[in-house]
């Protein structure tokens, strides 16, 4: 169970009056919208903010400094909740997102047929695929079967991404697959060909090495899932009841990772110089003592500046 801003502790928790603040924004107001998007919003709050973005899309496109981007989402599972979260999250990364999707289960038709509703209509196609669709969910322990399954999955992904580039006319945002939470042979999974973990690990390596093209994006969902914990990321209940690929509470951080990539795609990447000045320029630890608790002044101990000869400062 996650707390208010636990998956993204660098963001402030959403204000209690978030819904009221949102309703008080009748006219397009980029600064106010981006201010609200900067909080650690839950999936419901992101959905409501996304609706407002959609309603004000044209006005924002004409008047804001946000970079408009059309995203097509092609998936093999339920993604409505991701679509709801993306436009609001895009604000956080300087992108004005409009999203289109096709019914799940029609992955190939969505990117390989000229009649696809995405053709010529999106800038980036985000592939949200799962091990079941790619044939990597069930163990394949016969000799060489695991490697062959990975070959087939990579071949399929190459065809799909090639279709997205040639038929749809879009760049690809490819996602790595999170390893399963439940092992088959425990610690032996990683070195036993044909276990889902072994196949998914190889798929992820080959995706980055063989499928990713120039101008494509890699969204490392596997790394994200591992960082929050695979046992928490995977939720068999929501997979079986609604084909949701991960626990609902991680939707905001998933959307954040996608939108970071899309922001970078639009040149919105930010460089940040972070200096730890605790007990150097001032005395005390600002994270513990607060702005009022630190000591500032010439010769203040322990706030004495560190000599510049220290290469780590």
């Amino acid at each position: 169970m996650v707390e208010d801003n636990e998956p993204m502790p660098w963001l402030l928790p959403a204000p209690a009056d978030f819904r009221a603040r949102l309703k008080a924004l009748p006219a397009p107001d980029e600064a106010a919208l981006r201010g609200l998007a900067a909080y650690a919003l839950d999936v419901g709050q992101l959905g409501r903010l996304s609706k407002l973005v959609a309603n004000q899309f044209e006005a924002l496109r004409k008047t804001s400094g946000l970079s408009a981007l059309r995203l097509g989402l092609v998936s093999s599972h339920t993604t409505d909740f991701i679509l709801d979260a993306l436009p609001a999250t895009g604000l956080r990364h300087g992108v004005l997102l409009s999203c289109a999707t096709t019914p799940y289960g029609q992955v190939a038709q969505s990117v390989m047929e000229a009649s696809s509703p995405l053709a010529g209509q999106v800038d980036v196609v985000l592939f949200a695929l799962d091990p079941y669709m790619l044939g990597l969910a069930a163990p394949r322990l016969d000799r060489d079967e695991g490697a062959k399954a990975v070959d087939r999955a990579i071949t399929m992904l190459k065809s799909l991404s090639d279709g997205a580039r040639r038929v749809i006319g879009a760049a690809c945002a490819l996602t790595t697959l999170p390893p399963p939470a439940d092992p088959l042979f425990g610690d032996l999974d990683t070195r036993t060909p044909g276990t889902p973990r072994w196949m998914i690990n190889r798929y992820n390596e080959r995706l980055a090495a063989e499928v990713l093209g120039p101008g494509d994006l890699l969204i490392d969902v596997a790394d994200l899932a591992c960082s929050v914990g695979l046992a928490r990321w995977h939720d068999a209940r929501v997979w079986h009841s609604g084909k949701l690929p991960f626990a609902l509470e991680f939707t905001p951080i998933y959307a954040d990772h996608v939108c970071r990539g899309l922001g970078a795609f639009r040149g919105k990447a930010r460089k940040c110089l972070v200096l730890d000045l605790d007990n150097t320029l001032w005395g005390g630890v600002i994270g513990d003592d607060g702005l009022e608790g630190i000591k500032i002044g010439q010769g203040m101990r322990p706030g004495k500046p560190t000599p510049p000869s220290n290469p780590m400062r």
Partner: protein
Amino acid sequence: MDRADIIKRIEPVMRDVFDDDEIRYRDDLSASDVEDWDSLSHIRLIVAVEKAFRVRFTSTEMETFNSVGDLVDAVARKTV
């Protein structure tokens, strides 16, 4: 936690999930009564209730929730 306390706390959760300030708790309130109550918002409601009451439902329990009253009963069983 008794039913009355749970109902008092579950109503704002419902309003938040369905983005509807007018929604009122009824034991038999179900998907057929709320326009935006689809399969996805059903999961969202359950997850929001889990978070609000710090409980976790099993797959079997999730499949048997036909009304908000069922949800309240399940929370009551887990918070005795």
